[in-house]
């Protein structure tokens, strides 16, 4: 069984982004870029499935600019066998990415596609579910546990109030939540090995996908700032403020 793992190159989670003064977006020039943390969990899960003998090949995919090759090399250093970059300088929204992935699913016929549940830049939380819809496959989103056996995936999902388990007939789509696993550290020998692995580059047009979107960003602004608060010296003052000034208790 092949496992397809889409990964996104995003601003590193430790970077606090700044809104551009002209309101056209956030300034990502010269900031550190990394693999979306949820996608790293997805790669780790796929590699573990291969190590358990459940998966036979792990294919990492990224959609975006040339530099996404670095992100794909990281995926291969974690343990993906090969990679595909769908190269485009256009802004790729989740629906466009889902269409590109659908084309690759048709081509590669994976038994499982594991994606991060959300990218930490646009915070959309859409691509996996959209891919599932386009490919007409069952979905197990926000997974905290995945078990594959006998042509089915049993997926434990994080839902409001607790956990839920669904049984999906393969092929299926899984999106990862934070507690699915802890991705391994990438070692130098594995980084070196990853450089020798196959990385194919294709264009959206090669896959017959139109990536245009009808959702336009009109402006990007700073969020409203909270007024600076005060430090209180002791518990008694705190209780007094909450009771008599804010009147919240």
């Amino acid at each position, binding site marked *: 069984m092949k496992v397809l793992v889409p990964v996104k190159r995003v601003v590193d989670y430790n970077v606090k982004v700044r809104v551009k003064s002209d309101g056209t977006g956030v300034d990502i020039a010269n900031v550190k870029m990394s693999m979306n943390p949820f996608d790293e969990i997805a790669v780790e899960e796929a590699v573990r499935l291969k190590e358990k003998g459940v998966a036979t090949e792990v294919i990492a995919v990224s959609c975006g600019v040339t530099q996404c090759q670095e992100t794909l090399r990281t995926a291969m250093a974690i343990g993906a066998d090969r990679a595909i970059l769908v190269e485009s300088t256009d802004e790729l929204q989740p629906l466009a990415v889902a269409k590109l992935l659908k084309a690759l699913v048709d081509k590669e016929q994976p038994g499982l596609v594991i994606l991060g549940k959300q990218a930490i830049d646009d915070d959309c939380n859409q691509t996996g579910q959209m891919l599932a819809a386009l490919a007409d496959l069952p979905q197990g989103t926000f997974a905290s546990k995945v078990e594959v056996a006998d042509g089915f995936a049993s997926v434990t999902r994080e839902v409001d109030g607790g956990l839920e388990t669904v049984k999906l007939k393969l092929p299926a789509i899984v999106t990862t939540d*934070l507690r699915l696993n802890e991705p391994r550290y990438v070692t130098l020998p594995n980084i070196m090995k990853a450089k020798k692995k196959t990385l194919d580059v294709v264009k959206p047009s090669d896959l017959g996908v139109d990536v245009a979107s009808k959702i336009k*960003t009109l402006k990007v602004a700073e969020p409203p700032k909270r007024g600076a608060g005060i430090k209180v010296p002791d518990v008694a003052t705190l209780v007094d403020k909450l009771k008599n000034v804010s009147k*919240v208790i």
Partner: protein
Amino acid sequence: MAALVIAEHDNASIKGATLNTVTAALACGGDVHVLVAGHNAAAAAQAAGQIAGVAKVLHAEGEHFAHGLAENVAAQVLALASGYSHILFPATASGKNIAPRVAAKLDVGQVSDVTKVISADTFERPIYAGNAIATVQSGDAVKVLTVRTTGFDAAAASGGSGAVDSVAAVPAYGSATFVGSEIAKNDRPELTAAKIIVSGGRAMGSSEKFNEVLTPLADKLGAALGASRAAVDAGYAPNDWQVGQTGKIVAPQLYVACGISGAIQHLAGMKDSKVIVAINKDPEAPIFSVADYGLEADLFTAVPELVKSL
């Protein structure tokens, strides 16, 4: 022009997030209809009709809707979608699971986590963990939205007079089945609906300490319990207590952060709270920059003292 709100419910009653979503739908202009897809869900459908502003309730009944599986609910929405200019879901675990399936099948983009409706086609939404607010315009024929409940007031749960229409249920999707769930039962208010939240961070040190120190405070305040990602990752608190960018987004009247340093990902989940209290012994903790009242103290002495003085 009409909007369809997909109700979140437990078959017997309507969940609170639905009410905020109705408010967002009303702001889009046009009539607001609510879909209740459930199993033995007549009571939930009746309750949906009582929501102020709801013109009509569509009730789809079927055993395969009992657990709200995305594959089944999305198919039901698609069967009813024609004629609606807007389809709205609460941005809860359930809404986020279903909405993109609907959008993709309609070949339209989705606007996630809408915090403000500017006009029928223009919306505000946070990006980068709330560090920037994007204004987006959708040129798609149907606007599929998920609604961040903290951005909208709840519509009144009574006073409406929406008639309930039964609609034909779509067949069950064969390739996905519900196996079971472990939903924690407790008497506390739901995290996203609570008026007061007591939240703990890594400084709690263990799950025993987390419970021993924070439970009495939550009991005294009638509060829900929350946690930072660090505390959840360390196993001090269950997964679904996580407040933050990728966990729950909350905006209670009072948020008490105990031993939480205040990473941007955590602030993204709680900075719209009305009053924020931070108790932390590190004077440099970033949580103090958003706190209305900061108490620089050891939480293991300050919190019990706080419990005593309430």
